[in-house]
């Protein structure tokens, strides 16, 4: 299957990403709010492009839950992950505006 490696690349990217994003410093509630607002804005932009990802939504939920428990390190990490994912989905939607034509059967 020609296209499965793409999926694997993306999933692998995600794993690597969550690994490198571990935070060494202790985050505050303000850090979380800032990170969450950035992630939320990006996800809303993905929404106007009709291209949100399930994992982004899951990361946003994680961030919120962690913050509610006072675990701001985790909350910030999850929010940053959500932001990166949302931005990837925006990039995908923007580039697909033209690239989709390459797949068309003519």
């Amino acid at each position, binding site marked *: 299957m020609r296209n499965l490696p793409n999926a694997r690349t993306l999933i692998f*990217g995600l794993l690597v990403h969550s690994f490198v994003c571990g935070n060494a410093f202790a985050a505050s509630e303000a850090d979380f709010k800032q990170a969450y607002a950035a992630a939320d804005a990006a996800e809303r932009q993905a929404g106007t492009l009709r291209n*949100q990802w399930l994992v982004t939504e899951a990361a946003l939920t994680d961030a919120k839950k962690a913050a509610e428990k006072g675990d701001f390190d985790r909350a910030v990490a999850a929010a940053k992950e959500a932001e990166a994912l949302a931005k990837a989905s925006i990039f995908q939607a923007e580039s*697909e505006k033209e690239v989709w034509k390459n797949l068309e059967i003519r």
Partner: protein
Amino acid sequence: MAHVDGAGKRVSMRWLSILLAALLPAATCAAAADDTDPAKEARAFRDFFVKKFPNVKLDDFANGPYSLNEDMRRQWEEKEQFPPYEFSLESGKELFAKPFANGKHYADCFTNSGIGVRQNYPQFDVKSSKVITLELALNQCREANGENAISYTGEDMAALTAYMAFTSRGKPFDIKIPDDPRARAAYENGKRYFYTRRGQLNFSCATCHVQNPGERLRAEVLAPALGILNAMPIYRSEWGGMGTVSRRFITCNSQVRGVPLEPQAEDYRDLEYFLSYVANGLPISGPGSRP
């Protein structure tokens, strides 16, 4: 792309390179032709599958993965002896015949009283300037008669469309694109949606159903895009029940880890318009059963 801090930038750059790597192979096979006559495109679409699967009879594409896999076909034929959608079909027949509170019927909303008309849907309605799918037409009929709309993904909608498909079995899809730029735009939008990669897996509908039909994705044998709606609605063993076109599109989106659109969203209706149009000439085979 603007970034707040260094860490964010690193991450995004990584993503950029991963995405570019994913997109590049596709980009190399760009065709420059800008010939967009839908009839011509539909022919090319059909020819692609006929050439890819020279042993499959054209009409058999309406049977989805069963046209491509002998072992699965035998299991399907065994199940067709007493198909699992039969209860839904009967319930659909009853629902269809049941009068609304005002005494009118679904039959009053359709040509030929709704019998043998499934192959004419979706239609482009010039008045409202939108694609009317069979599911939407059923709910419009309800609302015009003072009834509440029913769920597009629920059992009753599946049952009603199952019955209407059953009375249309064997009739070839006959989807019209009226000479109206808005109709043409709806078709083009459906086509765009079909080929657009989305979700975390970076799959388009075409990734599975044009490039890899007949292959196994995990356990499922992927159906060819040609004729993929002819068998709708379907009883899926995976669902343990019936599903409408709306339900199928939504699960497709989730499977590539994308957030699905709402049922009967414009993009979904246009997608159905495109997929049905390119299947013109292939017989309605619904209701169907699928793994």
